[in-house]
């Protein structure tokens, strides 16, 4: 099955990193600090290489001015714009200027909007975060119970249906799922059944400020707008979690401690709810964390289908117009975000794994 290959890979990657943390944790604290610093330095290196590649790439693709200026403009006016945007300089000098400014925290202004690129990205970030969190919660709410059920009763017809369904979740392309959800819940059902509520198919609903950040999940209108895009994203992720939960539950069930719990006469609810669930949470947390990062960074397709005003939409619009400062700033943010996320996942893992805790207590 083609779909399971990346899954396997991700778990292996996860375990490796987790192992590294385990070692760091079990030794002295300074090593932990060294480990974090090493991670951050790697990130800095990635950022430098990545920004150089993007600079060169966009230079090769074409001229941003040709994409943005009115076709009526004469060569003199085009040249004036090139000078304003600094595009008249050789690429290497543009790059050095960028690096110099970036060290001072200035990532340049968007060619198109004329506003600081970082500002544009942070303006869009709450929308994407909100969508990613909503889809994560949905995928856990749907995927975890289904997966555990399928793990406990692998031969029940219900389990087989769940597993077959999860293959669909994997293999159906995101944009198709989104469009189908729109057709069914925003167009067809409300047309056919008079009492069926019509779900909004595009955009973000009314927002309110929470600690200065505009969020939409606190208003009824905002929640309604969130449903379909979050479901679309949760479709793939939920399927991933179903398969993961099933596989790990199957692994945990024959373990001695489960047998022991059964022998003690604990109720099935307690065995599943505490002993099984606790143990399968480790890989689930790892994969959810990494998947969360994927969603935040690359929810491009879903955001486009639902016209969701998030960072992914900004990225795709900027790439199409060769708006280089925004593309570079976006990737810098994402690299940084992934580094932090991986660190958090590692730390979370050590919290969830009691063996790590015991070891560190022993030292």
């Amino acid at each position, binding site marked *: 099955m083609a779909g399971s290959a990346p899954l396997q890979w991700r778990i292996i990657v996860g375990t490796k990193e987790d192992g590294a943390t385990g070692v760091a944790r079990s030794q002295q604290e300074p090593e932990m600090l060294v480990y974090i610093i090493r991670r951050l330095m790697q990130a800095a290196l990635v950022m430098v290489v990545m920004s150089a590649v993007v600079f060169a790439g966009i230079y090769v693709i*074409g001229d941003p001015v040709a994409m943005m200026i009115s076709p009526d403009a004469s060569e*003199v*006016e085009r040249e004036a714009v090139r000078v304003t945007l600094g595009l008249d300089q050789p690429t290497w000098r543009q790059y050095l200027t960028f690096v110099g400014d970036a060290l001072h925290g200035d990532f340049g202004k968007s060619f198109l*909007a004329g506003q600081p690129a970082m500002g544009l990205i942070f303006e869009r970030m709450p929308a994407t975060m909100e969508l990613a969190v909503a889809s994560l919660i949905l995928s856990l709410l749907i995927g975890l119970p289904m997966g555990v059920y399928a793990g406990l009763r692998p031969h029940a017809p219900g389990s087989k249906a769940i597993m077959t369904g999860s293959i669909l979740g994997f293999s159906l392309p995101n944009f198709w799922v989104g469009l189908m959800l729109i057709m069914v819940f925003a167009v067809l059902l409300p047309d056919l059944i008079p009492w069926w509520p019509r779900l909004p*198919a595009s955009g973000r609903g009314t927002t309110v400020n929470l600690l200065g950040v505009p969020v939409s999940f606190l208003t009824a209108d905002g*929640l309604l707008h969130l449903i379909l895009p979050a479901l679309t994203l949760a479709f793939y992720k939920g399927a991933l979690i179903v398969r993961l939960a099933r596989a790990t539950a199957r692994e945990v069930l024959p373990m001695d401690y489960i047998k022991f719990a059964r022998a003690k006469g604990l109720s099935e609810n307690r065995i599943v709810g505490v002993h099984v669930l606790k143990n399968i949470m480790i890989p689930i947390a790892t994969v959810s964390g990494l998947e969360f990062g994927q969603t935040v960074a690359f929810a491009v397709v879903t955001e486009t289908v639902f016209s969701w005003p998030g960072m992914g939409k900004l990225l795709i619009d900027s790439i199409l117009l060769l708006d280089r400062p925004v593309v570079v700033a976006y990737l810098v943010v994402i690299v940084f975000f992934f580094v932090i996320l991986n660190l958090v996942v590692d730390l979370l893992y050590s919290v969830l794994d009691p063996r790590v805790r015991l070891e560190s207590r022993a030292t």
Partner: protein
Amino acid sequence: MTSFKKMVAVLAAAIAFTAAAASAQELKIGLKTEPSSLDPQYHALTPNLQVAFYMFDTLVKQNESLKPMPGLALSWKPISDLVWEFKLRPGVKFHDGSDFTAEDVVFTYERVGKVPNSPGLYTIYTRQMDKFEIVDPLTLRIHTNTPAPLLPLDVAALPILSKKAASGPAPEGKTSAELNAGNGLIGTGPFKFVSWQRGNSLVLERNDAYWDGKAPWAKVILRPLSNNTARVAALLSGDVDLIEDPPTTDLAKLKSDPKITLARAVSNRLIYIHLDQHGDPPIGIPDTNGKNPLMDRKVREALSIAIDRKGIVDKIMEGVALPAGDFLPYPMGGTRKDTPIDPYDPARAKKLLAEAGYPNGFSITLGAPNGRYINDLKVAQAVAAMWSRIGVKTEVDAVAPPVFFKNRDSFKYSAYLAGWGSSTGEVSNALKSLVATPDKLKGMGTTNSARYSNPAMDAKLEEALRTVDDAKREALIAEASQIVMADHGLLPLHFEVSVWAMRKGLIYEGRADQITIAQNVKPVK
């Protein structure tokens, strides 16, 4: 099951609540392209001008077929070859209640060149303006550095800011960032600014004191829905009331939907093929022994009549195009009523090729953007098939728009398919950019990457651009464009037809410049 029904009921109640909040006087429009800024002098491009026209007025307006109409100016006339006089409309008030006068116009026009970081300055419309003379508060004279017969059309792209509201410490007064936040965004237009969330919505409310009558909508919400499918879905689900430019593949379905109405208008956008005519050796034609066959008028004519324009319009454009034989559709300025369209005649095309010395044809590459114009790739493929049928073996090189522009501007194509929208609504605009002999200093032939050159045409065009008398100028322009057409200097394919789709109960008279204007969207009585 009951809890599910309960949930649905709660949802329904929530939706009913939000729906009740939206009044019947609200119009939601799905835009194809979002403006890059609300500063009406930041970026000279249609999506920006479109939203500027909601909040601001221009001295001269353009009607549906782009003819100049009185706006903030009641009348205008040339006093001499170098001076235009505009009589301004009395009694017009800005949104903040202050009076509109010639001072505001001068402030606005002088601000144009000072806006920093612009990816496309509005100076393309002010470059002929030399100095301004305020005769009295309602009379303005604009002195030009050269005869500027098209000045009234230039000012139609310059929305007027309020001097009082848009002044500030920066050289340009209020900065683009301030205007984007609504600070100083005071115009005389039919709608007032309420809020803008980039990427999500621009909310406007009606200006009840508008000089040209109240708009039928108390509130207008413009939403950027750049993805074609998402835009159609938003209309079908009732998220928006009207959308721009539904994709051609969905037109049949929308047409048969009883809840949807369509509006159409022939646009000012010509889709054309340009043939490299810079001389020998040819670009990308390997089998003619270094001779450029495209220099021969007969070959160009053969390539033109080998194209079945009607077939392309019917089969590929699904009827939303009009076969073209000129730079603009009749009756726009400089066009003729009886412009012939090159007839489809492959047999004669073959004969012409043989007469020109290419009985076995030759090989050629046709460059095209993929995703810039409606069905651009499919049209290029169809043309390639038609050319191959008369023996000109054609390969299509379709690439992403930025790559296409780069290739085109560095003369990589022996032939390319592109589009041109004449914003002025008259032919001189297209002649100047597409077929005039390239001259950087004069700003001529800026998009003539085929390097077509005909001194007779250049002379006629330059004379026209000096002629202030409307009738005389249009006659000269028509003659110039006929020279190009007789030369087959450029092969016009079709004019795109702009389409709007809206919920039943609305009417909109489409515009040639593909702009959506909310006060012209009317509920059916």
